[in-house]
């Protein structure tokens, strides 16, 4: 089990919190909340060790397009990068709803 943390710059605040996903086989849970400051904070708890570079790639790509100031907690149970991206997009969509 590994805990990985990232920070990204942000452009605007977000109005609410969103929860999506489940810590099930090949899946993950995303808890998205308004950030306490003007930056974005990401904490990844993952059951699979040694994929720090892959996580950074996926998150870099997501935050290249998403600029909300959020605190995100990811609880991962072996999701593929594609599934991670889909869950993040779903959480962002939940913000818009």
């Amino acid at each position, binding site marked *: *089990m590994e805990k990985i943390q990232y920070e990204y710059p942000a452009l605007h605040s977000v109005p609410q*919190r969103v*929860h999506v996903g*489940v*810590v099930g086989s090949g*899946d993950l849970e995303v*808890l998205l909340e308004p950030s306490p400051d003007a930056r974005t904070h990401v904490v990844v708890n993952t*059951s699979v060790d040694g994929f720090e570079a892959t996580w950074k790639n996926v998150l870099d790509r997501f935050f290249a397009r998403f600029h909300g100031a959020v605190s995100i907690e990811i*609880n991962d149970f072996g999701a593929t990068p594609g599934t991670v991206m889909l869950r993040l997009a779903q959480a962002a969509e939940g913000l818009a709803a």
Partner: protein
Amino acid sequence: MNADAAARAGYRRFLERRSFIEMNARERACAVLDPGTFREMLGPFDRLKSPWLPLQGIVAQADDGVVLARGTLQAKPALIAAIEGAYQGGSMGEVSGAKIAGALELALHDCAQGRLIWPVLLFETGGVRLQEANLGLAAIAEIHAAIIALRRYFPVVGVIAGMVGCFGGMSLAAAVCTHLIVTPQARLGMNGPEVIEQEAGIEELDSTDRGLIWSLIGGEQRYAVGFADDLLEDDADAIAAAVRKAVSAGPASAPPARSVQAERYAELLRTIDPNQPLDGESLRRLWQRGLKP
């Protein structure tokens, strides 16, 4: 032509149906409650999670796999406890078990004060979480006690939809419910097929034989021999309607709970000859008459 039209109608019905099985625990609780009344207690952002799983290298889910929701059923206050089967097999740990037990005990306290709250349990669970052992078992015992105490006030309704099913100590929780709703995909049993195969050998039970497993512990069989009260298709609206009907029927109309009919079940068990092979079909023939009180 007629057969064709019937097939088309059946196909359309299937497409229009909202699958309950495909919903997660939160969506299931929403689907059962009156629209727009879902209000979650101790949700994921409260981060009341298992302190034990991370110590054993397992990532914990923020709500420990149990969704507690208040809302209304036919405009009357209700409490839903829904178990998330996709997280650790819907297993009951210290926290998830305490969430359900605590909520039921609070509902019981309110009922004793004259504030009735209808409890509904949406099971999808392999039973106790082995990583939390006795703490999970203790919580399950508290859940049993709370269900039995609540039964005095109104029918306690349980739903087993599938595909996990309901096993172990939580199968007893389902068994003490006043009214149990199952789908054909549901399974209800003390030990799961894999456990039986592991302990008694593949000659006793082949856990990969799905037809055999469902013929013994599947929803249709459990309904046919009287261990479940409603057998419904995997349809969220039909399941929600059955929950409403069961709770609104009130305690007076419900038959005595199965768990207070020990003598009758002992009688039925005596009709079985353990030296003879027994399959699901013969058990149905043996018990279908005896089970109706």
